[in-house]
């Protein structure tokens, strides 16, 4: 079996562009609805999240499921009408409330009112997250800064080990992976109310670190094949290199995905969407390394070489990179 990556490159590019475009549309819609491209969790915008569960060792405490209407009424009385309420668990004994950022006094008033109406909650099963709005912005900006620094670091390293154009194209593949993951989470945010938290930024960074691996391995092979037979056309070289590393790309992605899928399906609630973000990102990363980074490199090198030949034919007319760049999207 031999994969014709170069010949069908317009197909691969169309698939990627379609997915990214859908994601961008979803981001646009959620920008209008929520004021942010992805549904932000309280990590970024600030707020208080209370997760409570009734203590069922107290007699009669868990007799009936929690009635969200009562909770709504309590919240209205406390002036927290805009909060969201969710009843959790199979027997409906858990409660999840999200409000604006509450001060410790406001929060304890709410907790007291809730346990008066609904019964005792088990402190061992309580989870409280409260983030001030300033700190939220700080978490977001430091996360984005980390993303930019790692992009710059990786570009510098790849320019050093390979060449500058390799590095730029690898970077385009990485941006592709980040956009695909963010786009799918924008869709999930609109459809299922999935939020992105600081772990999502961690996930994006991990995706960047991992997916650049795949790209580097393929570029490494392209360089090797090119050194062995420099007279072959770049298209053939890339096709060969991709096919020679294909088993490795698939196996590595598979072995990395196995624990992640297990965590997504069976793991704790905290890591569920973290694992999902990584799964999407790693699949996108493997795809972009095999089909995007390689074909982009072949396309770019071909243009440059043709430009060089044209240039020598047409008495030193410079190739114009600016034209090429504008054709790209």
């Amino acid at each position, binding site marked *: 079996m031999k994969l014709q990556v170069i010949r069908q490159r317009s197909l691969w590019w169309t698939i990627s562009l379609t997915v990214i475009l859908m994601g961008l549309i979803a981001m646009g819609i959620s920008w209008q609805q929520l004021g942010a491209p992805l549904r932000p969790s309280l990590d970024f915008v600030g707020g208080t999240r209370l997760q409570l569960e009734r203590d069922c060792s107290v007699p009669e405490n868990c007799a009936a499921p929690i009635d969200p209407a009562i909770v709504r009424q309590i919240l209205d009385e406390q002036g927290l009408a805009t909060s969201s309420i969710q009843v959790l668990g199979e027997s409906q004994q858990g409660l999840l409330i999200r409000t604006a950022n509450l*001060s*410790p*006094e406001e*929060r304890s008033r709410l907790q007291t009112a809730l346990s008066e109406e609904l019964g005792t909650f088990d*402190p*061992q*099963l*309580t*989870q*409280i*997250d*409260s*983030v*001030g709005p*300033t*700190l939220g912005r*700080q*978490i977001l900006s*430091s*996360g984005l800064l*980390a*993303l930019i620094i*790692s992009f710059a*670091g*990786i570009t510098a*390293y*790849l320019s050093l080990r390979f060449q500058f154009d390799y590095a730029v194209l690898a970077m385009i593949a990485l941006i592709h992976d980040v956009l695909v993951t963010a786009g799918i989470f924008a869709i999930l945010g609109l459809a299922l109310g999935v939020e992105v938290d*600081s*772990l999502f930024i*961690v996930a994006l*960074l*991990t995706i*960047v*670190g*991992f997916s*650049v*691996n795949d790209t*580097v391995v393929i570029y*490494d092979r392209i360089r*090797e094949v090119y050194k062995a037979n420099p007279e072959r056309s770049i298209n053939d070289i890339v096709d060969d290199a991709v096919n*020679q*590393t294909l088993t*490795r790309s698939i*196996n*590595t992605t*598979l*072995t*990395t995905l*196995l*624990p*992640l*899928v*297990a*965590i997504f*399906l*069976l*793991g*704790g609630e*905290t*890591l569920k969407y973290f694992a999902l973000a990584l799964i999407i990102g790693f699949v996108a990363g493997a795809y972009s390394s095999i089909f995007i980074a390689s074909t982009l490199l072949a396309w770019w090198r071909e243009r440059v070489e043709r430009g060089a030949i044209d240039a020598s034919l047409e008495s030193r007319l410079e190739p114009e990179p600016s034209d090429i760049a504008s054709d790209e999207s």
Partner: protein
Amino acid sequence: MGRQRILLGVILALTLIAIGVIVKIPTPLGLDLRGGSQITLQAKPTEAVPEITPEKLQGVQTVVERRINGLGVSEAVVQTIGQDQLLVQLPGVSDPEQAERVLGGTAQLDFRSQKQGTERALNDLLLEREGLLSSREQLQNSSDTTMIATNETALQKTEQAIAVLFEKTGLTGDKLRDSYAEPTAANSWEVVLVFDEQGGTQFAEITKNLAGTGRGLGIFLDDSLLSAPTVPPQYAEAGITQGRASISGGFDTQEASDLAVQLRGGALPVPVEVVENRTVGATLGRDSIQSSIYAGVLGLVLVLIFMVVYYRLPGLVADIALMIYALLTLALFNLLGVTLTLPGMAGFILSIGMAVDANVLIFERTREELRTGKTLYRSVEAGFYRAFSSILDSNVTTIIACIALFWVGTGLVKGFALTLGLGVLVSMFTALTCSRTLLLYLISFPALRKPHWFCPNLSPTAKPQAEATS
């Protein structure tokens, strides 16, 4: 072959040491896994203090630490983050309301005068408090929470009883401009107080009334008595004037500077605000750790099975190398005191993915070499040699991402970056050294030198040559 043996011995020794370390040193678990409260406090500049200097933050930290001691939480940690924030970790606290209230309030320093006829009562109570404080010190590192709680209640009662013996004067900490320790005679130190103008006048008035009576001037911080110096009779006429006073009482350097810091800290006019609170109940933390660990382990077992099924003998070697990798990495975490959080665990599981990748790269390369008709030994050597540059490049890029995360990231993000980065470093060693040594050792046995155990469906033309030499 001698070098091979030595390496094999080194690997074995390292593995045994790693097991020893894992058994001996417990892995510190983050609050998200063991349950507890993590509170971030932000120091806020005011008009009087437009900038939070490291010294100011230090002062805030001292106050916060003292207040936490007052809460009676064992193993609490207070760290500064950046320019103006403090991170407070309170293990085992699942109702953080009291902690937040106590930590968030501004420290109240005030000066009170002792009521008449309470000298003896005060002496008794001070002795009682002394005893309770020393038993708190002993209990601090124990895990007996009921004893700690009982002691705290008794201590609070004593503090209240002491406070009853004093009268408020209206002179408070915001009128104290500075306080510092100063040596008087050999081995003796005193604490100097400097008031502003209004404070100076008030202070003179209070000391005038107390001078020579034998009653003390009560210096209270958050309603707890710090010190109750008496005022000598020579000040009976005008009190202690000029807004300066010193508390002497046979302090040594440490005691004097502690009191000065406490006074300064209490007088520090920077309010703090609780900007973040993350609390996880102990049971909830345990549940999430368990299900995530089970899931991760299940995934890894599938990976191990996959490696053997797909890569045969080298796959088995890789599995052994992976287990050694896991042991070494966990031991390294314990040695460095890396606190294991949920994202930290995710980082570790992902680093195992990286370690697998190195092996996959090598074995794919080995197979390619075998298919071109090289001998087994040469194929294995070439596999390791030629996969090296890919492994190096891919790991360096991951480490770059980790450094970026660790550098600018906060809290949980840092934990993730640290475990992933350390894991990748260790995996470079295990993939290149462990797998290689074990594999070369195994093919030194002729019985194991079967190319189809390395690459199934090898074309028959390549076979005879592959079996001919080694």
